[in-house]
């Protein structure tokens, strides 16, 4: 059982969400309120363990009196606010944003993307076959993980996880600008020559599979990756005394990747290189 530390009590504030009065604790976002009310607002760049960058704009909602739409993931609820989550305007923006994304990057490994594209009636193909795409080859420069920029939606989550929000390694950043912006290490070199410490916390937060375990990448390539057939077992890392939780993803009796529960109050889903990648000794087959 995971223990959840109790936060100090917070005052409640009331606002109107889709014509229904709701009460949320001070400091809650509109998205928090939506989720508490059981509304399904799509999100991509929002991460449960990170401060959202609100860059993807698929969670936009209409706030009465505002000229533009607001990102639900980061706009704090204010008393008396009147918010609508499912208007023609919000549906239009979400549809177009999904079209823009799907026409420029590969969303095939993005959970729920296909469902949203269908639900919002998005037609990514209507920009024509000439529509500019990233179209980049995956960068495989080490045995631990792969950077596939063709799937990157620039959500900034990996940058935040590597930077001051978790790992403090600051090994990656956004470089360039506009459509040419990319995630890169210093001087855009290979990962092995960068400040990367291979904690894999960036893979943990990547919402699209642009960052993936080398093992997963290879198995997907040869068609043997089968998420349905995998079991997940959460255990305790044996390398040191901190006691981080590991979730072992096992397929055909082999560990294929390691993640960590995000609701763990110690690690919040983060691990170090040993916990994340050092599992070969369990199944050493030479």
């Amino acid at each position, binding site marked *: 059982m995971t223990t959840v530390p109790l936060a100090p009590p917070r005052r409640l504030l009331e606002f109107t969400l889709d014509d229904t009065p709701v009460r949320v604790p001070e400091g809650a976002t509109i998205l928090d309120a939506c989720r508490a009310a059981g509304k399904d607002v799509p999100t991509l760049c929002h991460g449960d363990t990170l401060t959202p960058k609100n860059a993807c704009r698929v969670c936009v909602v209409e706030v009465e009196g505002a000229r*533009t739409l607001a990102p639900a993931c980061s706009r704090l609820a204010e008393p008396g606010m009147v918010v609508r989550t499912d208007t023609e305007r919000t549906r239009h923006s979400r549809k177009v944003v999904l079209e823009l994304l799907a026409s420029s990057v590969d969303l095939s490994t993005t959970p729920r993307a296909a469902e949203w594209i269908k639900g919002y009636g998005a037609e990514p193909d209507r920009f024509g076959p000439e529509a500019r795409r990233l179209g980049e080859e995956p960068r495989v420069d080490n045995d631990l993980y792969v950077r596939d920029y063709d799937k990157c939606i620039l959500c900034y989550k990996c940058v935040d996880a590597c930077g001051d929000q978790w790992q403090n390694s600051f090994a990656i950043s956004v470089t360039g600008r506009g459509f040419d912006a990319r995630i890169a290490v210093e001087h855009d070199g290979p990962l092995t020559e960068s400040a990367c410490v291979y904690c894999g916390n960036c893979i943990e937060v990547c919402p699209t599979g642009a960052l993936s375990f080398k093992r997963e990448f290879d198995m997907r390539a040869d068609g043997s990756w089968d998420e349905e057939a995998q079991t997940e077992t959460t255990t305790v890392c044996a390398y040191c005394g901190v006691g981080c939780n590991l979730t072992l993803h096992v397929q055909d009796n082999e560990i294929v990747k390691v993640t960590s529960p995000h609701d763990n109050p110690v690690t919040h889903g983060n691990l170090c290189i040993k916990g994340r990648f050092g599992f070969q000794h369990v199944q050493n087959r030479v």
Partner: protein
Amino acid sequence: MDLRFGDSKPTDDERRAVDAVLGPPESAWEGADDRSAEDLRWARGGREARERRDLLLPGLHALNDRVGWISEGGLDYLCRRLTVPPAEAYGVATFYAMFAVRPRPAQVLHVCTDLTCAARGSAAVTAGLEAEGVAFEPSPCLGLCERAPAALLVRAGVERDEGQAHDPAPPGPGSSLLGALGGQAPTAARPLNSAVPGGTTRGGGPTRLARVIAPATVGALAGVARNPEAAEAEAPAVMAVPQAGHAARPVRPGGRVVPTLPQTPSGGTPTALRDDCPQPHALQLLRRVGVVDPGSVDDYRAHGGYAALRRAFALGPAGVIREVTESGLVGRGGAAFPTGRKWQATASQPDAPHYVVCNADESEPGTFKDRVVMEGDPYALVEAMTVAGYAVGAHRGYLYIRGEYPRAYERLTHAIDEARARGLLGDDILGSGFAFDIEMRRGAGAYICGEETALFNSIEGYRGEPRSKPPFPVEKGLFGKPTAANNVETLVNVLPILTQGAEAFRATETKLFCVSGNVDRPGVYELPFGATLDELLDLAGRPDTLRAVLLGGAAGGFVRPDELDIPLTFEGTRAAGTTLGSGVVLVLDESVDLPRILLRIAEFFRDESCGQCVPCRVGTVRQEEALHRIKDRTGEAAAGDIALLREVGQALRDASICGLGQTAWNAVESAIDRLGVYK
């Protein structure tokens, strides 16, 4: 922090360039080569070094100015000095158009191919340069639209006396090559450990030569590219003000009376009489341009300078804010937010310190009014920033000026230095006990940095990406502290408010317009609010066959020839479904290929999008693609793509983080709806 700085070493030149900004490293912890016994006992850096991160941009400029590009060794050394992660610094360096992270020639010729220059024949110039074999880079608007087509030549690593480089009292900016060419007197030297770090004047003379060539001809550019030193001196700033030097004339030729402004007691000898330009009223914001010596604080004072600051000290901060609020002054950057309310909101924040930021990153294509004010009357801006600082309780102001304005940068650097030397900036201004100083920051080619929150990020040494609002700058602005950010034109308006009083100001309030394109007398015009577009075009000399006017720049909208009675006020333009924006009035005649202009607008937004949010990053690309598809089409053949443009445009407007994305579809939409461009 767990930083790794790599093994690449800076060259001596690069080390000197960085040290000129930061001073020599004090220990191996800070990047010195040799480790002393003391270094083994004491660790330095940490927070103290990180708090200097705002020197990253000046440091990158120093490297780029010295070598022409930013090498791995140079960048790593700068990162070590400032404790900035190299990946982040690389992300910052690659954000700006004027920096390169791959080797390139020391000399770069930027030829403007933006709206006005395109309308005035930049294509012929670039074609000619290609034929001549002269290397150049196409550039977005250089803000020299009254002299279009324009070019800017930048050469890194200008020779200088190496002995002087280590001189503890280096020559000031006024003695620089540019300053000398601009006719400025040499200025007093600034001590190395000056109160204001990060000015590129610290520790050595200029390492960059920047030369403006406008109007640009193939011959002139080829000559300058081969021998930059032999370039002709730039036309004085007053040449951009066709109204300058005229006596007041209450009635404009054409018969209708334009509200008359009281003649200001400025005195002085007009330097540029332009007899071909009718003059309907006295100038208020431009009255000193061409009259005052932009290099002399004494001359500025002789022309009424620093009267406003004295009045401010007499009124007290709350009195100044009251006066500005009563004047009804609204921001001239395009958003038209009431300045008094902004100042009041900043002043009343309990968090400290407060900052004043002057947004002089005028990058809207077709806009050049702030440049003309800064070049022609730089002390006015220094004084106005001081007044703003006094009003909102700030002791430090940042002046963020676009990197493409070498002369304005030199003049303001000089003005700030001289004001400081004369006690008009510093610890005890005019004996009032009020302390205020101004730091200059040079942009590096990014339109988005004109967005106030992106500008804060840029100053702080991060990528110039806009932040989400709320929180607003008055609450959390520069360095996360309460900040009043105003553009140049807004700030200089504060001077007449204080000298005349709010009521008199309201009666005579004026607006600056940047008129360019197919007119007889392009330039900056100052008109009382309420004058119509028609009257402005009369002053500037309209073309025979007017096709359209782009009002407000690339983020604004087109106006038809039969709509010229639009009053040039914020309310009037809004009622007419357009915007004053940054005061751009780009006049296009029948010779202009509109679809091509729209393509250029789309290309501009695609190029200048920071890439942070999806609607803008991808939407601007899709907009440009659709316009490419229909550039030679009309009617039914274009209908599908126009519908697509509308859908993308609506999402751009609704869902983008900042104004760049929100306005990227405005001009195109107005061209379709008001001009019927693809009909």
